[in-house]
Protein backbone atom coordinates (compact mmCIF):
# COMPACT_ATOMS: atom_id res chain seq x y z
CA UNK A 1 0.00 0.00 0.00
CA UNK A 2 1.35 3.38 -1.05
CA UNK A 3 0.24 5.14 2.11
CA UNK A 4 2.03 2.63 4.35
CA UNK A 5 5.26 2.99 2.39
CA UNK A 6 4.96 6.73 2.57
CA UNK A 7 4.39 6.63 6.30
CA UNK A 8 7.53 4.53 6.76
CA UNK A 9 9.67 6.81 4.62
CA UNK A 10 8.30 9.87 6.33
CA UNK A 11 9.00 8.53 9.79
CA UNK A 12 12.54 7.77 8.76
CA UNK A 13 13.36 11.09 7.12
CA UNK A 14 11.09 13.81 8.48
CA UNK A 15 13.47 14.75 11.30
CA UNK A 16 16.34 15.27 8.89
CA UNK A 17 14.20 17.32 6.56
CA UNK A 18 13.03 19.53 9.40
CA UNK A 19 16.52 19.88 10.88
CA UNK A 20 17.96 20.96 7.55
CA UNK A 21 15.13 23.44 6.95
CA UNK A 22 15.43 24.85 10.46
CA UNK A 23 19.17 25.46 10.29
CA UNK A 24 19.01 26.64 6.72
CA UNK A 25 16.12 29.04 7.12
CA UNK A 26 16.82 29.98 10.71
CA UNK A 27 13.12 30.13 11.40
CA UNK A 28 11.01 27.41 12.89
CA UNK A 29 7.63 28.31 11.37
CA UNK A 30 9.05 28.59 7.90
CA UNK A 31 10.93 25.34 8.39
CA UNK A 32 7.62 23.68 9.28
CA UNK A 33 6.02 24.99 6.10
CA UNK A 34 8.90 23.84 3.95
CA UNK A 35 8.99 20.44 5.67
CA UNK A 36 5.31 19.97 4.98
CA UNK A 37 5.78 20.95 1.36
CA UNK A 38 8.75 18.61 0.92
CA UNK A 39 7.02 15.65 2.53
CA UNK A 40 3.96 16.15 0.38
CA UNK A 41 6.20 16.29 -2.64
CA UNK A 42 7.61 12.93 -1.54
CA UNK A 43 4.07 11.57 -1.37
CA UNK A 44 3.25 12.85 -4.84
CA UNK A 45 6.42 11.37 -6.35
CA UNK A 46 6.40 8.19 -4.33
CA UNK A 47 6.20 5.96 -7.38
CA UNK A 48 9.41 7.48 -8.75
CA UNK A 49 11.41 7.52 -5.50
CA UNK A 50 13.25 4.38 -4.50
CA UNK A 51 13.56 3.58 -0.83
CA UNK A 52 17.37 3.34 -1.00
CA UNK A 53 17.79 6.73 -2.60
CA UNK A 54 14.98 8.50 -0.78
CA UNK A 55 17.43 10.19 1.62
CA UNK A 56 19.45 11.80 -1.16
CA UNK A 57 16.29 12.68 -3.05
CA UNK A 58 14.82 14.35 0.02
CA UNK A 59 18.05 16.20 0.78
CA UNK A 60 18.05 17.64 -2.73
CA UNK A 61 14.37 18.54 -2.69
CA UNK A 62 14.63 20.07 0.79
CA UNK A 63 17.63 22.15 -0.16
CA UNK A 64 15.89 23.38 -3.32
CA UNK A 65 12.66 24.09 -1.46
CA UNK A 66 14.52 26.09 1.19
CA UNK A 67 16.42 28.00 -1.46
CA UNK A 68 13.23 28.77 -3.39
CA UNK A 69 11.56 29.80 -0.18
CA UNK A 70 14.33 32.26 0.59
CA UNK A 71 14.29 33.65 -2.91
CA UNK A 72 10.55 34.16 -2.79
CA UNK A 73 10.98 36.05 0.44
CA UNK A 74 12.35 39.29 -0.85
CA UNK A 75 11.80 41.08 2.40
CA UNK A 76 13.74 38.89 4.71
CA UNK A 77 13.44 41.54 7.39
CA UNK A 78 14.21 40.29 10.84
CA UNK A 79 14.97 36.80 9.73
CA UNK A 80 18.63 37.09 8.97
CA UNK A 81 19.61 40.53 10.06
CA UNK A 82 18.24 40.22 13.52
CA UNK A 83 19.01 36.59 13.74
CA UNK A 84 17.11 33.47 14.47
CA UNK A 85 13.81 33.59 16.11
CA UNK A 86 14.22 32.86 19.73
CA UNK A 87 11.96 29.88 19.69
CA UNK A 88 14.31 27.96 17.47
CA UNK A 89 17.41 28.88 19.33
CA UNK A 90 15.98 28.14 22.74
CA UNK A 91 12.86 26.00 22.80
CA UNK A 92 13.97 23.50 20.19
CA UNK A 93 17.45 23.11 21.63
CA UNK A 94 17.91 20.74 24.49
CA UNK A 95 20.30 23.28 26.02
CA UNK A 96 24.00 23.12 26.55
CA UNK A 97 25.42 19.81 27.58
CA UNK A 98 26.63 19.76 31.14
CA UNK A 99 30.20 19.31 29.97
CA UNK A 100 29.99 22.11 27.42
CA UNK A 101 31.50 25.34 28.57
CA UNK A 102 29.76 28.69 28.46
CA UNK A 103 32.00 29.82 25.61
CA UNK A 104 30.97 26.87 23.44
CA UNK A 105 27.31 27.59 24.05
CA UNK A 106 27.75 31.18 22.94
CA UNK A 107 29.62 30.05 19.85
CA UNK A 108 26.74 27.73 19.02
CA UNK A 109 24.22 30.55 19.20
CA UNK A 110 26.36 32.89 17.13
CA UNK A 111 27.15 30.09 14.76
CA UNK A 112 23.49 29.54 13.94
CA UNK A 113 23.09 33.24 13.32
CA UNK A 114 26.21 33.35 11.16
CA UNK A 115 24.95 30.33 9.26
CA UNK A 116 21.70 32.08 8.48
CA UNK A 117 23.65 35.02 7.10
CA UNK A 118 25.82 32.91 4.85
CA UNK A 119 25.18 33.18 1.12
CA UNK A 120 24.47 30.35 -1.26
CA UNK A 121 25.89 27.85 -2.01
CA UNK A 122 27.96 28.04 1.14
CA UNK A 123 25.00 27.77 3.47
CA UNK A 124 23.60 24.65 1.83
CA UNK A 125 26.97 22.97 1.83
CA UNK A 126 27.69 23.78 5.47
CA UNK A 127 24.28 22.60 6.63
CA UNK A 128 24.52 19.44 4.56
CA UNK A 129 27.98 18.71 5.86
CA UNK A 130 27.94 19.91 9.46
CA UNK A 131 24.31 19.42 10.38
CA UNK A 132 23.19 16.58 8.13
CA UNK A 133 26.70 15.08 8.26
CA UNK A 134 26.62 14.06 4.62
CA UNK A 135 29.81 12.94 2.91
CA UNK A 136 31.41 15.07 0.23
CA UNK A 137 30.18 12.67 -2.43
CA UNK A 138 26.63 12.88 -1.15
CA UNK A 139 26.77 16.67 -1.05
CA UNK A 140 28.09 16.67 -4.59
CA UNK A 141 25.12 14.54 -5.62
CA UNK A 142 22.57 16.64 -3.77
CA UNK A 143 23.95 19.96 -5.00
CA UNK A 144 24.80 18.61 -8.43
CA UNK A 145 28.26 20.13 -8.39
CA UNK A 146 31.69 18.47 -8.72
CA UNK A 147 33.35 16.94 -5.69
CA UNK A 148 36.29 19.33 -5.71
CA UNK A 149 33.94 22.29 -5.86
CA UNK A 150 32.18 20.96 -2.76
CA UNK A 151 35.50 20.87 -0.92
CA UNK A 152 36.48 24.34 -2.07
CA UNK A 153 33.11 25.81 -1.13
CA UNK A 154 33.06 24.11 2.24
CA UNK A 155 36.51 25.35 3.16
CA UNK A 156 35.61 28.83 2.00
CA UNK A 157 32.35 28.67 3.94
CA UNK A 158 34.14 27.67 7.14
CA UNK A 159 36.50 30.59 6.72
CA UNK A 160 33.55 32.95 6.20
CA UNK A 161 31.86 31.59 9.29
CA UNK A 162 35.01 32.11 11.33
CA UNK A 163 35.18 35.68 10.06
CA UNK A 164 31.61 36.30 11.19
CA UNK A 165 32.24 34.70 14.56
CA UNK A 166 35.39 36.75 14.98
CA UNK A 167 33.41 39.94 14.25
CA UNK A 168 30.86 39.02 16.89
CA UNK A 169 33.64 38.15 19.30
CA UNK A 170 35.37 41.48 18.70
CA UNK A 171 32.11 43.42 19.19
CA UNK A 172 31.41 41.49 22.34
Amino acid at each position, binding site marked *: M*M*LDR*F*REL*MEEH*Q*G*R*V*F*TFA*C*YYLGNREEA*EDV*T*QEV*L*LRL*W*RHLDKVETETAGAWLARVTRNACYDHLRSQRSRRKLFTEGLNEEMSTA*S*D*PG*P*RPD*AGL*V*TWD*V*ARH*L*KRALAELDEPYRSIVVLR*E*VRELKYEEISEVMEIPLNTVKTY*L*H*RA*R*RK*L*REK*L*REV*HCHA
Partner: protein
Amino acid sequence: MPDTVKPDTLTSHRTDCERALAILDTLGDAPLADAEESLLTAHAATCAACAAEWALAAEMARAFLELPGLECPPAVTRAVLREAQREAEREAQREAERREVAGLAASGWGRRLVRYLTELLPGPGPGARPSAPAWRPLVAGALLVALTAVGLYYQTRPTPPPAFTAAEVARAQDDLERVFSYLGKIGADTGVALREEVVDHVLQPTRRAFGSPVATRASQEGD
Protein backbone atom coordinates in the same frame (compact mmCIF):
# COMPACT_ATOMS: atom_id res chain seq x y z
CA MET B 1 68.69 46.60 13.13
CA PRO B 2 66.36 44.62 15.39
CA ASP B 3 63.05 46.08 14.05
CA THR B 4 63.68 45.21 10.43
CA VAL B 5 62.01 42.10 9.09
CA LYS B 6 63.78 40.45 6.23
CA PRO B 7 61.62 40.03 3.11
CA ASP B 8 62.25 36.29 2.87
CA THR B 9 61.23 35.88 6.50
CA LEU B 10 58.00 37.78 5.83
CA THR B 11 57.23 35.64 2.80
CA SER B 12 57.90 32.49 4.71
CA HIS B 13 55.73 33.69 7.59
CA ARG B 14 52.87 34.51 5.23
CA THR B 15 53.15 31.13 3.55
CA ASP B 16 53.03 29.45 6.94
CA CYS B 17 49.88 31.39 7.80
CA GLU B 18 48.23 30.36 4.56
CA ARG B 19 49.19 26.77 5.13
CA ALA B 20 47.86 26.93 8.67
CA LEU B 21 44.59 28.46 7.51
CA ALA B 22 44.20 25.81 4.83
CA ILE B 23 44.56 23.15 7.51
CA LEU B 24 42.07 24.95 9.74
CA ASP B 25 39.55 24.96 6.87
CA THR B 26 39.53 21.17 6.98
CA LEU B 27 38.95 21.04 10.71
CA GLY B 28 35.81 19.05 11.33
CA ASP B 29 36.25 16.72 8.37
CA ALA B 30 38.60 14.31 10.12
CA PRO B 31 41.10 14.39 12.97
CA LEU B 32 44.24 16.30 12.05
CA ALA B 33 47.15 14.25 10.79
CA ASP B 34 50.27 14.31 12.97
CA ALA B 35 52.18 16.35 10.41
CA GLU B 36 49.37 18.90 10.20
CA GLU B 37 49.09 19.14 13.96
CA SER B 38 52.80 19.69 14.44
CA LEU B 39 52.86 22.29 11.67
CA LEU B 40 49.98 24.11 13.31
CA THR B 41 51.51 23.88 16.76
CA ALA B 42 54.84 25.18 15.59
CA HIS B 43 53.25 28.00 13.67
CA ALA B 44 50.79 28.96 16.42
CA ALA B 45 53.72 29.34 18.80
CA THR B 46 55.06 32.18 16.67
CA CYS B 47 51.81 33.64 15.24
CA ALA B 48 49.18 34.90 17.66
CA ALA B 49 46.61 35.51 14.90
CA CYS B 50 46.77 31.94 13.68
CA ALA B 51 46.72 30.64 17.25
CA ALA B 52 43.49 32.57 17.83
CA GLU B 53 42.09 31.32 14.53
CA TRP B 54 42.90 27.76 15.52
CA ALA B 55 41.07 28.18 18.81
CA LEU B 56 38.06 29.63 17.01
CA ALA B 57 38.04 26.89 14.37
CA ALA B 58 38.17 24.27 17.11
CA GLU B 59 35.30 25.96 18.95
CA MET B 60 33.31 26.10 15.76
CA ALA B 61 33.87 22.43 14.92
CA ARG B 62 32.85 21.49 18.45
CA ALA B 63 29.77 23.72 18.27
CA PHE B 64 28.72 22.07 15.03
CA LEU B 65 29.04 18.67 16.62
CA GLU B 66 26.82 19.82 19.45
CA LEU B 67 24.10 21.24 17.26
CA PRO B 68 21.09 19.12 18.05
CA GLY B 69 19.11 17.24 15.44
CA LEU B 70 15.53 18.48 15.60
CA GLU B 71 12.33 16.51 15.82
CA CYS B 72 9.74 17.19 13.18
CA PRO B 73 6.74 18.71 14.98
CA PRO B 74 3.87 16.21 15.26
CA ALA B 75 1.48 18.82 13.84
CA VAL B 76 3.44 18.81 10.59
CA THR B 77 3.40 15.02 10.44
CA ARG B 78 -0.33 14.96 11.09
CA ALA B 79 -1.06 17.62 8.45
CA VAL B 80 1.01 15.79 5.83
CA LEU B 81 -0.60 12.44 6.56
CA ARG B 82 -4.07 13.97 6.48
CA GLU B 83 -3.40 15.56 3.09
CA ALA B 84 -1.82 12.37 1.71
CA GLN B 85 -4.81 10.37 2.91
CA ARG B 86 -7.19 12.82 1.26
CA GLU B 87 -5.28 12.72 -2.01
CA ALA B 88 -5.15 8.91 -1.89
CA GLU B 89 -8.92 8.77 -1.46
CA ARG B 90 -9.51 11.23 -4.28
CA GLU B 91 -7.22 9.25 -6.55
CA ALA B 92 -8.95 5.99 -5.65
CA GLN B 93 -12.28 7.57 -6.47
CA ARG B 94 -11.00 8.88 -9.80
CA GLU B 95 -9.53 5.50 -10.61
CA ALA B 96 -12.83 3.79 -9.84
CA GLU B 97 -14.65 6.23 -12.11
CA ARG B 98 -12.13 5.66 -14.90
CA ARG B 99 -12.48 1.91 -14.56
CA GLU B 100 -16.24 2.18 -14.58
CA VAL B 101 -16.25 4.22 -17.78
CA ALA B 102 -13.72 1.92 -19.45
CA GLY B 103 -15.65 -1.13 -18.33
CA LEU B 104 -18.88 0.29 -19.64
CA ALA B 105 -17.34 1.05 -22.97
CA ALA B 106 -15.65 -2.31 -23.25
CA SER B 107 -18.24 -4.62 -21.83
CA GLY B 108 -21.47 -2.79 -22.48
CA TRP B 109 -21.44 -0.72 -25.64
CA GLY B 110 -18.83 -2.68 -27.58
CA ARG B 111 -20.39 -6.04 -26.90
CA ARG B 112 -23.86 -4.73 -27.53
CA LEU B 113 -22.77 -3.23 -30.85
CA VAL B 114 -21.12 -6.45 -32.01
CA ARG B 115 -24.21 -8.39 -31.06
CA TYR B 116 -26.42 -5.91 -32.89
CA LEU B 117 -24.24 -6.01 -36.00
CA THR B 118 -24.19 -9.82 -35.83
CA GLU B 119 -27.91 -9.85 -35.86
CA LEU B 120 -28.00 -7.48 -38.81
CA LEU B 121 -25.90 -9.78 -40.95
CA PRO B 122 -27.86 -12.16 -43.18
CA GLY B 123 -28.31 -15.55 -41.50
CA PRO B 124 -30.28 -18.71 -42.02
CA GLY B 125 -33.47 -16.91 -41.19
CA PRO B 126 -35.50 -15.35 -38.41
CA GLY B 127 -35.25 -17.01 -35.07
CA ALA B 128 -31.83 -18.47 -35.90
CA ARG B 129 -29.87 -16.10 -33.61
CA PRO B 130 -28.69 -18.61 -30.97
CA SER B 131 -27.30 -20.92 -33.60
CA ALA B 132 -25.74 -18.17 -35.75
CA PRO B 133 -22.59 -19.40 -37.50
CA ALA B 134 -19.22 -18.61 -35.88
CA TRP B 135 -18.05 -16.32 -38.70
CA ARG B 136 -20.78 -13.79 -38.06
CA PRO B 137 -19.29 -12.17 -34.92
CA LEU B 138 -15.95 -12.01 -36.75
CA VAL B 139 -17.50 -10.22 -39.70
CA ALA B 140 -19.37 -7.98 -37.27
CA GLY B 141 -16.10 -7.17 -35.50
CA ALA B 142 -14.43 -6.38 -38.82
CA LEU B 143 -17.38 -4.16 -39.69
CA LEU B 144 -17.00 -2.38 -36.36
CA VAL B 145 -13.30 -1.82 -37.02
CA ALA B 146 -14.04 -0.57 -40.53
CA LEU B 147 -16.70 1.81 -39.20
CA THR B 148 -14.30 3.11 -36.56
CA ALA B 149 -11.63 3.63 -39.22
CA VAL B 150 -14.06 5.54 -41.44
CA GLY B 151 -15.13 7.64 -38.47
CA LEU B 152 -11.53 8.37 -37.59
CA TYR B 153 -10.76 9.29 -41.19
CA TYR B 154 -13.59 11.77 -41.33
CA GLN B 155 -12.62 13.20 -38.01
CA THR B 156 -8.97 13.71 -38.88
CA ARG B 157 -9.03 14.47 -42.62
CA PRO B 158 -7.94 17.95 -43.59
CA THR B 159 -10.81 20.37 -43.80
CA PRO B 160 -11.49 21.67 -47.34
CA PRO B 161 -11.19 25.39 -47.91
CA PRO B 162 -14.43 27.19 -47.13
CA ALA B 163 -16.81 27.62 -50.03
CA PHE B 164 -17.85 31.18 -50.74
CA THR B 165 -21.45 32.15 -50.83
CA ALA B 166 -22.91 34.16 -53.71
CA ALA B 167 -23.25 37.14 -51.39
CA GLU B 168 -19.53 36.99 -50.49
CA VAL B 169 -18.54 36.81 -54.14
CA ALA B 170 -20.79 39.76 -54.97
CA ARG B 171 -19.31 41.78 -52.10
CA ALA B 172 -15.79 41.02 -53.30
CA GLN B 173 -16.74 42.08 -56.79
CA ASP B 174 -18.12 45.36 -55.50
CA ASP B 175 -14.95 46.02 -53.52
CA LEU B 176 -12.76 45.33 -56.50
CA GLU B 177 -14.90 47.47 -58.73
CA ARG B 178 -14.50 50.36 -56.33
CA VAL B 179 -10.72 49.85 -56.16
CA PHE B 180 -10.32 49.76 -59.90
CA SER B 181 -12.59 52.70 -60.55
CA TYR B 182 -10.51 54.67 -58.03
CA LEU B 183 -7.28 53.57 -59.69
CA GLY B 184 -8.78 54.42 -63.11
CA LYS B 185 -9.68 57.88 -61.80
CA ILE B 186 -6.10 58.41 -60.56
CA GLY B 187 -4.82 57.17 -63.93
CA ALA B 188 -7.10 59.63 -65.75
CA ASP B 189 -6.01 62.51 -63.50
CA THR B 190 -2.30 61.82 -63.80
CA GLY B 191 -2.29 60.50 -67.36
CA VAL B 192 -0.60 57.29 -66.21
CA ALA B 193 -2.42 54.19 -67.43
CA LEU B 194 -2.55 51.13 -65.18
CA ARG B 195 -0.49 48.37 -66.75
CA GLU B 196 -2.24 45.13 -67.64
CA GLU B 197 0.34 42.87 -65.95
CA VAL B 198 0.00 44.84 -62.72
CA VAL B 199 -3.74 44.28 -62.78
CA ASP B 200 -3.16 40.58 -63.47
CA HIS B 201 -0.67 40.33 -60.63
CA VAL B 202 -3.10 41.89 -58.19
CA LEU B 203 -5.97 39.74 -59.37
CA GLN B 204 -4.24 36.37 -59.46
CA PRO B 205 -4.95 35.38 -55.83
CA THR B 206 -8.47 36.72 -56.13
CA ARG B 207 -9.05 34.65 -59.25
CA ARG B 208 -7.81 31.61 -57.43
CA ALA B 209 -10.14 32.20 -54.52
CA PHE B 210 -13.33 33.31 -56.24
CA GLY B 211 -12.99 32.04 -59.79
CA SER B 212 -12.79 33.90 -63.06
CA PRO B 213 -15.97 36.05 -63.02
CA VAL B 214 -14.42 38.42 -60.50
CA ALA B 215 -11.22 38.65 -62.41
CA THR B 216 -12.92 39.26 -65.71
CA ARG B 217 -15.07 42.02 -64.35
CA ALA B 218 -12.24 43.58 -62.40
CA SER B 219 -9.90 43.41 -65.37
CA GLN B 220 -12.51 45.05 -67.51
CA GLU B 221 -12.90 47.77 -64.92
CA GLY B 222 -9.11 48.18 -64.84
CA ASP B 223 -9.04 48.62 -68.59
